[in-house]
Structure formats: C-alpha cells, structure tokens
C-alpha cells in the first residue's frame, strides 16, 4: 500500500514538474517565419545580422501556418513570430493566448493571398454566384479565409451555400488542378503559381485593392519575452525596419533573400511586388487608427493586445 501511494505521489510530482511551462532565460532568441513568403529582413537572417544586433544567437524556425506559430509560442518554443497572419493572431487572442502584437510585418494586396477559380468551371467575377452549391477549398483560420469572405461579399455570392473544404494551400492547389474544387483560396508563391496555371484570379490585384481587401501580416511576441527582454525586442524590430528601408531604396540583396525564402528570384520579386513594407511612422498610424485598427475592430478582437512602444520612431 505504501509503495502504491508513494509511487502515485512521486509520479504526480514528476508530471507537475515536467509539464509546467518552461522557458529559460534568453540565451537565444527563437523566431518563427514562413518559407515562400519573402521579406527584406530574411537577408539579415541569412547573413546572421540579427545575432550580431541582438548579441545572442537567433534561431529561425519555419512554419506552414500562423496557427502553428501560436501553438509553438504557447508551448514556450518560440519567442517572436515574424509575419504571422492577422487572422491566426486574432483567433489566438480571442482564446486568451498571452501574446501581443508589436509590429506590422507587411501589408499586401491580393498578390500574396488570393482566390483562384478554375478555367474549366467557367466561373469568373461576373457569374460568381454559380459558386453556390459547389466545392471550394479554403485554409480555414488563416488570412486566406478572410480574403475569401471579403471576396464573396464583393462578388455577391453566399458563403453559407458553398461546400467549404478545409485544405492547406499546397493541397488546395492540387485539388484545383485535379478539378475537385472549382475555386481554391491560397497563399504562398508556389501554390498560387500552380493554381493560376489552370485557373485565374477571381479578383485581380487592382480590383481587390479597390474593394479594400487587404492582408496584414504582423510581428507577435509572447508577453513573457516582451516583459523580460524589451531591449532585444526593440532591436529586433529596428533591424527589421532597417531592412525594409534598404528594400525601399532598392539596396536589398535579392539572391540572399531568395535563398532564405526558398524561392526563385523572379517568383520572389513577383510576390514582393504585392507587398507593402511600412515605415515606422506608417506602422504606428496603421496600428492606432489605420488599416490594422479597423481590421481588428471589424473582427471583434479583444482590446489591449497591441503595443506600439517598440517601434523605432
């Protein structure tokens, strides 16, 4: 009996100790990012400039979607998520995750995230109501879902009447090619390229911009890291904005960026052409009363999860 009891107590103690959220002091900074999603600061990542600026090693881990970034942050494996989509961030703070929005990575039109209808289906913007009752692939809980929702409002089709299939972009593109779905909403240069080979964008980049459909990717950080290492966070954002500045003045090293994002230079340039990297002042404007603010309010996001104090103004 004693043996059983001591075994039970021992195992409970061991469990309690092991599961507890472990996060060591910042001997390294762990950053999440996307492949196929180029940004100027990837050049700094490739050249290890972040490690030089922060004074500690910076470990970059690539993810396939923003929700996974949140999961990793909550588990204590990631400190900063760069270019997390706004929708996954909103889902996370709605479920009360202790993460904060500290910077805007980029704003983009439909260049980077878009819905593509297959040519075989004959559906275009003009007869988009025909989508109702058909199958469409959407990566739920990502920016693409937001773009899908907004596009449907623009073309006047009812989302509720469609057969929405949860698919990640790579599979969505494959399903569009095989004709399983008539429309696929996706992000990522290679996936869009595969999809547009057999289809065309429902809304052109210009049409989407006119309709005010705008994607925003952000930099989010765990509350713990933000409180403990405010200096490092500020430096991280500063280096990022320096890189954006360099890109705006055309001095970025495209080869190193393409290597870091695992894309061909030409494809990367096309993807980048749809991105807008904001200056610190524009970022603050967007965060306090501009696009980002409107977006957050529109999605019913709990207040108090945006912090502009780390911007290099």
């Amino acid at each position, binding site marked *: 009996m004693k043996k059983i009891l001591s075994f039970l107590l021992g195992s409970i103690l061991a469990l309690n100790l092991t599961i507890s959220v472990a996060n060591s002091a910042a001997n390294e900074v762990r950053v999440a990012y996307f492949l196929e999603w180029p940004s100027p600061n990837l050049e700094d990542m490739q050249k290890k400039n972040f490690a030089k600026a922060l004074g500690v090693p910076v470990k970059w881990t690539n993810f396939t979607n923003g929700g996974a970034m949140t999961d990793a942050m909550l588990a204590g494996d990631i400190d900063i998520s760069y270019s997390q989509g706004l929708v996954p961030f909103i889902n996370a703070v709605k479920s009360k995750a202790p993460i904060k929005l500290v910077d805007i990575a980029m704003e983009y039109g439909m260049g980077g995230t878009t819905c593509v209808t297959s040519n075989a289906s004959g559906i275009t913007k003009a007869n988009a109501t025909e989508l109702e009752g058909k199958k469409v692939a959407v990566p739920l*809980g990502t920016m693409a879902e937001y773009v899908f929702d907004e596009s449907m409002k623009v073309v006047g089709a009812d989302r509720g009447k469609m057969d*929405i299939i949860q698919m990640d972009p790579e599979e969505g593109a494959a399903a569009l090619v095989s004709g399983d779905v008539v429309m696929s909403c996706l992000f990522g240069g290679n996936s869009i390229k595969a999809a547009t080979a057999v289809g065309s964008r429902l809304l052109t980049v210009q049409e989407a911009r006119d309709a005010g459909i705008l994607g925003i990717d952000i930099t989010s950080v765990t509350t713990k890291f933000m409180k403990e290492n405010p200096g490092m966070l500020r430096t991280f954002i500063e280096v990022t904005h320096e890189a954006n500045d360099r890109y705006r003045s055309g001095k970025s090293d495209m080869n190193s960026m393409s290597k870091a994002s695992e894309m061909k230079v030409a494809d990367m340039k096309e993807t980048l052409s749809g991105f807008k990297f904001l200056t610190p002042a524009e970022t603050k404007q967007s965060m306090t009363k501009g696009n980002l603010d409107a977006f957050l309010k529109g999605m019913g996001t709990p207040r108090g999860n945006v912090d502009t104090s780390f911007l290099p103004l």
Partner: protein
Amino acid sequence: MLTQSITILILVSIVGCILYGRRLIKTEKVDAVFGNPERAKGGTHWIIVGGSAILLVWLYYSWDIAKGFYPKSANELCQVAKINESLLGLKYQFPIEEREFKSTSIIKIENKNLGKITNEIQNSQGVNAQQKSTLIGFVNKTSQLIPLLTNENLMEMDTKIKIKEMTDELRLLSSNFQKKDYPFETSAAKNERQIAISEQGDWGITKIQSGTGSIENTIEVPLVPATNKGLKFHSAAEELTIINDKFFKLRNHNPQFKNSIKQLKEDIKIYRKNLSDADEVASDYAKDIVKIARRIEYASIYPPSALNEMQNAIIEFDNLQKAEQGGLRLVDIFLFPAGTIVSSGTSCSEQGSGRWLPKPSDTLNKFILMSKPSVGYKNIPLLWIDMMDVSKIIGFILPDWIADILPGDYPVHSSDGVVKQNFKGQVLKVVTGDFKLFKIPVPYGHIWDSFLRVFLGLVFGILIGVPLGLFMGLNRFAKGFFDPLIELYRPVPPLAWAPLIISVLGIDNTGKVFLLFMVSLSIMIISARAGASGTQLSKIHAAHSLGASNKQILRYVIFPNSLPEILTGIRVAVGMCWGTLVAAEFLAGTTGIGFVENVAKKYFQYEVIWITIFIMGMLGLLFDVTLRKIIDKTIPWRGKG
C-alpha cells in the same frame, strides 16, 4: 456542486474498491499457482478503480477539482498573476529567480562578443594591418565603456535619487499592502466594481454565439477582482506596473559615459566615411562595433551594489505578497498542477495543462450542445436523421442512360412557353429520381459519414480480399501471380498513399473509401490465405473419402476452418481503418470526425478536439465489441480445432 460530489464519489469508490480487493485476496483460497489463468478472472472492483483513476487524473489536471471546490480561486489567482506580470521585468534584473544580475550577464555576453570580433578582425584577410589596429582600438574603447557604467563613483546623483525614489515607493507599497483595508476603496469605486463583477460571468463559461449558432471559445477567467483579497493584489499590481515602467525608462548614463560613447560613434563614423568602396570588410566590422556600443548604451547596466536596496525592497514585497496569498498559494500548488493562471495585459488565461485539457464539466456541456442537431459543427449535426424520399434511392440505382437510349427526343418548349411532357421525359424523371414516393428516415452527420466510410471500405475489402485470399491459399498460380503485388504494397503505411489517392481519386468519399479499402484488403487477403493453407489435411481427406466435391470441400471444410483467421483479420482491419480514416479526413473534407478535429485545431477549440477523440474511441470500441459478439456467435469452434 456536481463536480464536488463526483470527486468525492470517485475518491470513496477508489478507496473502497482497494480495501475490498485486499480483503478478497486474504479470504480467497490460494490454490491457483502463478501462471494459472484462473487468477486473472473476475475483478470488477479493479475495473472501477481503473476507470475512476482515469477520471480523477482528468478532473485533477484539467483543474476541474479546483473549479468545483474553490470557484473563486481562478479570479484571485488572476489578480496574483497580475502582480507576477508587473514584477516580471523588475525581477528579471536581479538574481531572484535568475542565477545572476541582468547587468552581469549582459557584460559577460558583450565581453564575449567583443573578444569574438577582435579575433575575427585579427584573422581577417580583407583588412590591412593599419586598419586592423584602428579597428581594435575601437573595440578597446567600446570595452572601456563598461567600467564607466559600473563605477559607483561616476554614477549621477540624479540617477541615485530616482532609484531611491522607486525603492521608497516599493517600501510604501509593502507597508500599505499589509494593512487590512488596502487599497482604501471608496464606496463609489466599490459600486462600480460590483457592477463589473456581475457582468463578467463565472470561470469557464460556454456561450453559443447568437444567430450563427457556432460555438465560440469562451474559456475565460474573470478579470475584475471579485474578492477583497483579489482587490488588494489587483491594486498593488497597478502600482507596480508604474514603478516598473519608470525603472525601464531610467538610464544609468553619466556625463563621462555620454562623452565617450559620443566620441566613439563619431570616430567610427568619420573612419567609415574615409574608407573607400574596396574596404567594405573593414566598414562592416566598424558597423558591428557600433552595434555593440549601442547595446551597451541601451542595456540597464548598473554598478554592482547600486541596486541592492531596490532588490531588497522587491524581495520584501515578493515575500509579503506570497504570505498574503495564504491558503490560495496551497490551492495554486496542489489544485492547479502543471501550470497556473497567467495574466497578459487585458486578460487572464489558463496556461499549462488546464489550457489543452478541458474540464470534464465543460466538455460534457459542449458535447450536449454540439449533439443538438440545430447546433452541430459547421452547420452539420454530429448524428441526426434526415427524411429522404425513396425516389432518390431509385434514381441512384437506375442508370441515367436508360432514358437516353429510348427512341424519340426530350420535350422542347413550345412557342407559347409551355413544356409538354412526353414518355422519354417521364422516364428521365424516374431514372434521375425526380418524383415523389414515401419518405424514410436516413441518418446523416459527421459521425455517420465517418462510420459509413469505414464500413464501406471494410465491406469492399472483405468482398474482394476473402475470396482472393482463399484462392491464393489453394492455387499455385494465384499464389505466385498475386504474391509480388500484395507483398509490395502491404508493408507501405496506408497514409503514405493518402496524398496520391487524393490527387487521383479526388477529395470526395471515393478517395477515402478507396484508401480504407486498400488498408482492409491486404489484411483480409493475408488472413484468408493463412486460414486456407492452415486447414488440416486429415479433415480434407476425410471429406474427400466421404465423397465430397471440390465445391463442398471448400464450402464445408476449408471456409469454416479459415473463419477464425478471417474474423480476427476483420478486427485488426477495423482498427487500422479508423487510424487511417481520421488522417485522410485531416487532408481534405467537409464532414467527418477527422474534419471536425482538424478545424477545431485551427480555432484552438480544445473541448471540441477532446470530444472528437472520445467519439472516435467510443466508436472504435463499439465496432470491436460488436465483432467480438459476432465471433463468439458464429464460430464457437474457434481455438478448439
């Protein structure tokens, strides 16, 4: 209330069953030796202990026991978490929970970085000797910046006063915090707080979003302090945040340091300007040195003993607040295992096992909610009945081309816009099911769809696999011909086929059923073959000598002999099919249990994830129990031949 009684019931039943079990051992005759299967028979009481233990672990690690016995504890812990949050930055500066001062570790890191860059410069090929000495001069100047910050005598009076002020504020907070009526709330503020409390609801509430009927995540820890103890912590946290912000605005910059760093920056700037384009390497090194200097400038580096008073004040307050928590601290340690409530600015949340392991009570509530056909998940119920016209089934069975091959044309509308039906048109209506007959109830929903996929995959696997397996067990040609094919595809994990099958057969049921068919087929073939070839020759000879035909031998000797193997194969196949199905539904789909889980994951709906896990477990168990019953009924000779 329910959680409390269940917890107590579980504890009582565990203790009771263990005592009963021990008494039973003592009273029983010990005539069965070790290894005798009789010893494993019976033992319902141990089943109760096992089941209760699972429930207890679940209740404990999901913090449902805490919620049941101390419903207010989450709210109070949220206030404590606020203090921890505001102390986080300050504490991190001192060796309270860390091993060393933040200043110490920064100096250590930067000295290391300076050493590294010195090495790099000295070994660099792209920099000439003269540049090297200039650059190393810069490095030395940078490292000389540190003593300027850590020298007590150089510290500015103004900085000292500010630190003193903050220390005094901390001390004042400590002494106030001990008072009974802190934070001296006015009645107006109290009324306001009461209203806020009544609005915020309880710990862990589940709401249906009105209108859409979708289930929103509302695992919420109430934020506004509801108890006097909580209020104390809440107010102290607010004051601490102000002190914390003040501290991080403070810079330990004395005039000497300011001059040196300004000089250094300017020197490097001039040096870089004078460099030609060819000296890019040297320029980069200079830039890196500036970066280190700037980090030293912005880091909070203080003389070793300058912050001692402040550290003591923080430790003093920390101890005070821990003492003030009293019983709450025990609740936190023992009833909130593997995590705790964490505050993050405007919200408190469960972080640790309570986050991903939902409470049994919440899960049950949500399951009841989801079971309602009007709610379901993504507008599709879990399992419900739809009235379907029999005509649809007829339309599905009869091929459409029957109408096409009839002579004549389909009706064309006349000039006055009327369509007159003819015989060919009528037939088309029948074969496409476009008519009304009586309606029958048909099940539908996520569970039914998953079930049907497994069932169909299994049935096709049995229909093709069993005859083929028997054939292979009896015929040399069949064995030789099909063996390479089967043996090549059998060892491949079924999921490895999934991406390919989805590309070839599409994302509809066809693809998924085919995948499951592949899973069950190989298992069925192997087991039928083993059953057929394992038949005892004496039985076949006996039947043969009694005048049985080949057909009769197959029907009455070989088939019954291989039935046990086949039915065991089916049991194995069911398990494999479940595993594959869920993963297949993860890839693409609009219905099914796997789909529900995959979507719930995207929205952090942990309750839904656990509900799907339970449903799958229950369905798997149901399949298995049914099969076991069938086996017992149909092959009583199993294991006795």
